[in-house]
């Protein structure tokens, strides 16, 4: 196993708001890390600091042994990133967009074509490849966003809510894809869906008010719930860790 993503005491302040307070993450090759937390807990901000979109106020992020702040170009070429909301250029066609990303990643000619084809196939975009983004459903946009992050076959994938807005069938497909990709990569995916943690993640990290409050396997997370809870056990643990008030739980 090799360490592919590491954050060391990552902090981010926005004016007076201390959004991320000393987050330490270590993700090895072969791990799919589910990044959980209530809205505004600091998930997206942490991911943005790992990808170099935001500069940490303190601490550092490392991708495949490269310090993101010191050598951003090298770090960025080793990761694929799906930003929150899967932003896209409304007037661009899916194919054109993927070709643009491919060129940005340094591919040309037949290599570029092959990579775009493969990306289109991997998330089933054939039907919409000639459509512009403004005509696409939320699900297709999200899938194009995933395709774009996979184009250069990076060892690290950072996916901000990859299954948000997908229907159950699409969710199933994307989750199988992530499981498969996770075998020889390090993946961090943020999600609100605790079922996703059980379905695809090898590890779960829960962050609340900018601090990590849980780091362990889904099984360990499950074990934290009292035996009396029979259904939605992860939900129970999540609520307990992020709010401290659980109906029928400890005072």
């Amino acid at each position: 196993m090799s360490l592919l993503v590491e954050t060391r005491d990552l902090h981010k302040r926005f004016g007076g708001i201390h959004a991320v307070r000393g987050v330490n993450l270590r993700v090895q090759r072969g791990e799919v890390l589910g990044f959980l937390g209530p809205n505004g807990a600091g998930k997206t901000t942490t991911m943005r600091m790992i990808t170099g979109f935001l500069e940490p106020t303190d601490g550092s992020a490392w991708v495949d042994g490269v310090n993101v702040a010191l050598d951003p170009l090298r770090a960025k070429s080793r990761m694929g990133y799906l930003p929150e909301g899967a932003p896209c250029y409304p007037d661009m066609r899916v194919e054109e967009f993927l070709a643009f990303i491919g060129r940005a990643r340094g591919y040309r000619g037949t290599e570029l074509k092959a990579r775009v084809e493969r990306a289109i196939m991997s998330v089933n975009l054939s039907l919409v490849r000639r459509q512009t983004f403004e005509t696409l459903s939320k699900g297709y946009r999200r899938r194009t966003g995933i395709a774009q992050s996979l184009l250069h076959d990076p060892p690290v994938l950072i996916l901000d809510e990859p299954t948000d807005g997908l229907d159950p069938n699409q969710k199933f497909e994307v989750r199988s894809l992530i499981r498969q990709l996770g075998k020889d990569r390090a993946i961090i995916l943020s999600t609100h869906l605790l079922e996703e943690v059980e379905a695809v993640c090898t590890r779960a990290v829960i962050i609340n008010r900018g601090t990590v409050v849980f780091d362990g396997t889904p099984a360990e997370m499950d074990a934290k719930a009292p035996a009396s809870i029979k259904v939605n056990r992860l939900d129970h643990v999540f609520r307990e860790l992020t709010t401290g008030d659980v109906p029928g739980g400890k005072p």
Partner: protein
Amino acid sequence: MIARTLVIARREFAAYFATPLAAVFLVIFLFLAGLFTFNIGSFYERGQADLRPFFQFHPWLFLFLVPAVSMRLWAEERRTGTIELLTTLPFRLGELVVGKFLAAWGFTLVALALTVPTWITVNWLGEPDNGVILCGYVGSALMAGAFLAVGACISSTSKSQVIAFVSCVVACFLLLLTGFPAVQDFFNGWAPRAVVEAVSSMSVLTHFDSMVRGVLDARDLLYFISVMVAFLFMNALLIDWKKAL
């Protein structure tokens, strides 16, 4: 490095043609350029074979049209969130800034190139000094570049294209007017002499006018190039600064 800059330039250039913006801009530009030259500029009545009436209105035409080209450069990326995608791709900041600028400049050069029939007309009607006309075109292209750099820089500060447009018109207007007496008077009362002189030499008009007269002075070239470099540099600083906010 150049290859990556061109990747950006190519996407941005195509983006102009993906919407009606390109067609609207080109038609309005050509219509107004023709109107100013032939009607208001009395091209025929002057009885002189040159393009002075054509170039003389360019600063005022560019004042409103160039900000329309530059306003979307960064503001749209911020609004749609694609800036996050763009800045996490393996590009250097300079490549993004210059690539976007080159696309916008290339687009205005297309507009300028489409006025070549006017040049042909004046050659057909008489025997103009083509060196002077070429110098005028170079001046016009440089002025458009300077305005675009200002516009790109302003576009990077806002999510709103409307704000970017209006602020850019005002900024370019100031850049045009600094040579005018009213502006000089404003600074005369309180600012040191060096500042007053600096302000007057900052006017786009003075530098453009001498190029339209056919005088290719290194100082004019240097002026336009420094405006472009300064504002593009500021553009990059602003983008980088937002990252640390």
